């Protein structure tokens, strides 16, 4: 009888997680064992070199502007899981102050990702989470838009100027950077980097991927935009697209846009701000 009682009480306690000390501290001091952390933005080869959409349009970008603010990096334990959708609670939390409008199309395939900013002295450790907000620019060629692309789209004998602007604001929470190399490890006196990555293939698809893969099934391709061409130019924003696009296509566009932001190949939890 006693043994049964013991068993039932142990089972009711669940795993050993319940009594874990979840108290967190925020340490923004600059100790001697600090290092440098660079924060980059990257549109990958799709934006730098161009690509062919899922429906066969060759798209090359003259400019691809994004405007970012409220960028913050974190050391979290346990590692932040963006699937949870929870706020990021960091043992160490370091903001990168400022609002930055960046042209991800600058350079060529040999160019390094665009440097947003450098945190010169951050506590050593693994920065395994990051958050940022994408907002409309208040000046310059992308004024009024959080994303603004100036591109050329070609297919057969068709060649269109493309200027697409998206006005919405987005708040992202990302876990660890995922890519060829693991990033975010700052050692005392050392230097590493993190990256905010934009996957424009989520919008237009990628002909190099299988036709029935999720990316190409869910993306729009370029045809819905090409249909809006006037005098060789496609120049639209979300306001005009709402009027001109079929409702289903516009709804899909609005669903896709938040998914452009990543940390490398790591997916994010995104909140659309209106």
């Amino acid at each position: 009888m006693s043994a049964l009682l013991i068993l039932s009480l142990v089972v009711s306690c669940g795993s050993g997680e319940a009594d874990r000390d979840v108290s967190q501290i925020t340490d923004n001091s600059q100790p001697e064992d600090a290092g440098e952390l660079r924060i980059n933005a990257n549109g990958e080869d799709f934006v730098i070199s161009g690509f062919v959409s899922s429906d066969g349009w060759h798209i090359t970008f003259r400019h691809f502007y994004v405007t970012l603010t409220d960028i913050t990096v974190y050391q979290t334990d346990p590692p932040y899981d963006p699937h949870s959708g929870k706020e990021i609670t960091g043992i160490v939390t370091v903001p990168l102050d400022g609002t930055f409008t960046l042209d991800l199309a600058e350079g060529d395939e040999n160019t390094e990702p665009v440097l947003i900013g450098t945190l010169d002295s951050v506590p050593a450790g693994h920065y395994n989470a990051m958050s940022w907000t994408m907002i409309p620019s208040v000046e310059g060629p992308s004024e009024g838009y959080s994303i603004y692309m100036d591109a050329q789209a070609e297919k057969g004998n068709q060649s269109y100027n493309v200027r697409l602007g998206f006005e919405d604001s987005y708040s992202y929470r990302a876990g660890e950077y995922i890519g060829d190399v693991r990033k975010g490890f700052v050692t005392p006196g050392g230097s590493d980097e993190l990256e905010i990555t934009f996957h424009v293939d989520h919008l237009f698809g990628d002909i190099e991927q299988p036709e029935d893969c999720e990316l190409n099934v869910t993306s729009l391709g370029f045809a819905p935009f090409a249909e809006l061409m006037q005098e060789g130019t496609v120049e639209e924003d979300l306001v005009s697209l709402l009027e001109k696009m079929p409702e289903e296509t516009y709804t899909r566009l609005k669903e896709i846009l938040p998914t452009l932001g990543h940390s490398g190949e790591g997916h994010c939890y995104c909140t659309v701000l209106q």
Partner: protein
Amino acid sequence: MKIPVLPFVLAVAAYPVFSHGVNVIWELRGDSVHVTGSFDDGQPMDNAQVTVFSGAAPSEPYLTGVTDESGKFSFLPDRVESENWDVQLRKAGHGEIVHISLSDAPTMQGGHGRFSVMQIVLMAVCVVWGFTGTALFFASKREKRNAHT
């Protein structure tokens, strides 16, 4: 280009969206870690690049490989090296990393479960309670027996 921070009126209404992605699960069978990756639409992450990192040297790959046609990959972690392992799966621009603590893994074939402090305290209380109850039971019988003598 850095521009001045200007006030923005945001978040009048906000709703969450999660980028479509991948799911990676793992389990400990005996001494082996078995990882399975799938896309959000349920398709397996077959032939995905796998990189395993040891907690002892988390920035350097411990081993690399690819998943099978079912999106599965297995490896035998060296528990002497570390109890903590990270496994990253990547395919076609999508990736995920899972963090594995062998110490906290569910007890399975050969797995090493660990009790929390609360569980240990409760077990101790129950054991003491059990012995005390048994002693009182026999003590009570002895008193009754004595009552009849």
